[in-house]
């Protein structure tokens, strides 16, 4: 006999799950509905033109798309040697012991620092440093710009990529490695010819997740990218990313179409990160299942 209280309890718990589902779908629907006006206003040229002039109601989001992709990809590329080194260090060379715990805590610490602090530090420490380099190179010394933003992003995503890659590297079966050692392979040869081939798709998925995170990162980038709505000509130029343009202009967007344009940028950002995330998670889940079965 099923009691009334049980039915009630089940209903409550179930409605929590449904609530979460509704929340997320509501989120997507809201973004789409509020982004519609600008697509009706300027059509697909919203995505492919590069004039962003809210006063004349011209909205071309291409500079932000390009700015986002360049900053994020550059950030991930800069971070790769470091994050992979940490991953191999913790996953292969020192899986346990004091040094491992120290590194683990240090990367956790790095991951825990709020992004606004990274931005602040970047603005007051990294940007002046970049300015000196730019003077040396003989280019316009803005200090802030794509390069500075990429460096800050790289620092921020190192712990993230490192922890995913480390988990993947730890999944490599030890009998495979032991077999290679037994055949007389050196440590590097084991890493190069056993661990990397086995783990490469997982590591790639981790990099994709990091890219998704780099694309969505707002505060740190907003503070050091320079906020210029033009098409960047070099990587030292100030630019704007999708996230930073929303952060800068959303509160001052006066008319509806301007607001809608910024919401459309948010929708694009959401789609970008979601696709990357889903794909990365899918690959990792597949790998983990293969390991367990």
């Amino acid at each position, binding site marked *: 006999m099923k009691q009334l209280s049980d039915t009630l309890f089940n209903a409550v718990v179930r409605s*929590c799950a449904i609530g979460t589902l509704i929340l997320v779908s509501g989120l997507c629907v809201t973004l789409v509905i509020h982004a519609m006006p600008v697509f009706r206003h300027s059509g697909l040229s919203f995505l492919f033109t590069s004039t962003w002039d809210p006063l004349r109601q011209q909205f071309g989001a291409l500079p932000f798309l390009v700015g986002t992709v360049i900053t994020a990809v550059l950030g991930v590329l800069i971070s790769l040697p470091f994050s992979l080194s940490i991953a191999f260090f913790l996953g292969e060379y020192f899986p346990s012991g004091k040094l491992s715990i120290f590194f683990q805590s240090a990367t956790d610490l790095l991951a825990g620092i709020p992004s606004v*602090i990274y931005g602040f530090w970047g603005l007051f420490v990294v940007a002046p440093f970049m300015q000196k380099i730019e003077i040396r190179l003989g280019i316009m010394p803005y200090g802030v710009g794509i390069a500075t933003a990429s460096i800050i992003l790289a*620092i921020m995503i190192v712990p993230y990529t490192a922890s995913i890659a480390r988990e993947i590297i730890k999944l490599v079966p030890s009998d495979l490695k032991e077999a290679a050692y037994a055949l007389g392979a050196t440590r590097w*040869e084991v890493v190069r010819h056993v661990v990397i081939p086995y783990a490469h798709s997982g590591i790639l998925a981790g990099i994709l997740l990091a890219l998704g995170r780099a694309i969505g990162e707002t505060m740190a980038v907003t503070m050091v990218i320079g906020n210029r709505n033009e098409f960047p000509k070099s990587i030292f130029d100030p630019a704007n990313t999708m996230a930073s343009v929303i952060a800068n202009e959303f509160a001052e967007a006066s008319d509806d179409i301007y607001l809608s344009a910024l919401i459309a940028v948010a929708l694009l950002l959401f789609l970008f990160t979601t696709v990357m995330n889903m794909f990365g998670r899918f690959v990792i889940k597949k790998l983990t299942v293969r390991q367990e079965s």
Partner: protein
Amino acid sequence: MRTGSYSRRIVISRIMECVIFFFAFISLLPLTLILFYLAKKGMAAIDWQFLTHLPRPVGEEGGGVVNAIVGSAILIFCATLMAVPLGVGAGLYLSEAKEGKLSYWTRVAVDILQGSPSIVMGVVVYLWVVKPMQSFSALSGSIALAIMMLPMVIYSTEETLKAIPCTLKEAALALGVPYYRTILKVVIPAGMSGITTGVLIGVARIAGETAPLLFTAFGSPFLDINPLKPVAALPLVVFNYATSPYPQWWEQAWGASLVLTFLVLCLHLTAKIGTRRWKIQF
């Protein structure tokens, strides 16, 4: 696979080992630099007045960030209050109904939520709450933060409850305890530590969030605990002061940064120690 002389292969292995160690250690450099600057510049800005006074206009010496500290506390408290019941409920559902369409789609939704950029939450909550109410408010800020926190709570609840052995539940059911009491009095208490840790990590994550607050909580120079009014928060203060043109405010931003980082790292540390200490072995 190319083979070379034995000694050459050993040398290459050594070199690569050094390269990996080198890069791994170099990547700790930013951490030390950030902590160094925070400690050096932050310490200089923090005194008793900084922690207990309201901000003063530019040009006047002194002033503090007590409004931001109180504001952050209000925002975090309200967000936790909203996220925890919903998150624990959803996590419970996912751990009980492992298969099924609803579980599958809820998991997908949580994954999406986990990966979506925080600024998007700010935009959406602006459209949902701020625009209809015609004013920025602490309420909208905490809703945005609650959405950010939700995935953490759901994940940790689900994972913890999944790890609790079925025998525990079966024993309670066999004694004739109704299902809902079994869950509330046996399963949830056994998983309490894991859930608490998840909540703490979630709180640590939202404590440092700025982007969702930009157009929801908005910031305010007054000490006001009315949830329908704009409210200040530590990360917002750091952002606004750091991007202002006044050197005096930069000093304050360093102070606020140090307070914020200290707070967040303490939460992380508590969560970490908690995981180790309260972990129940089965």
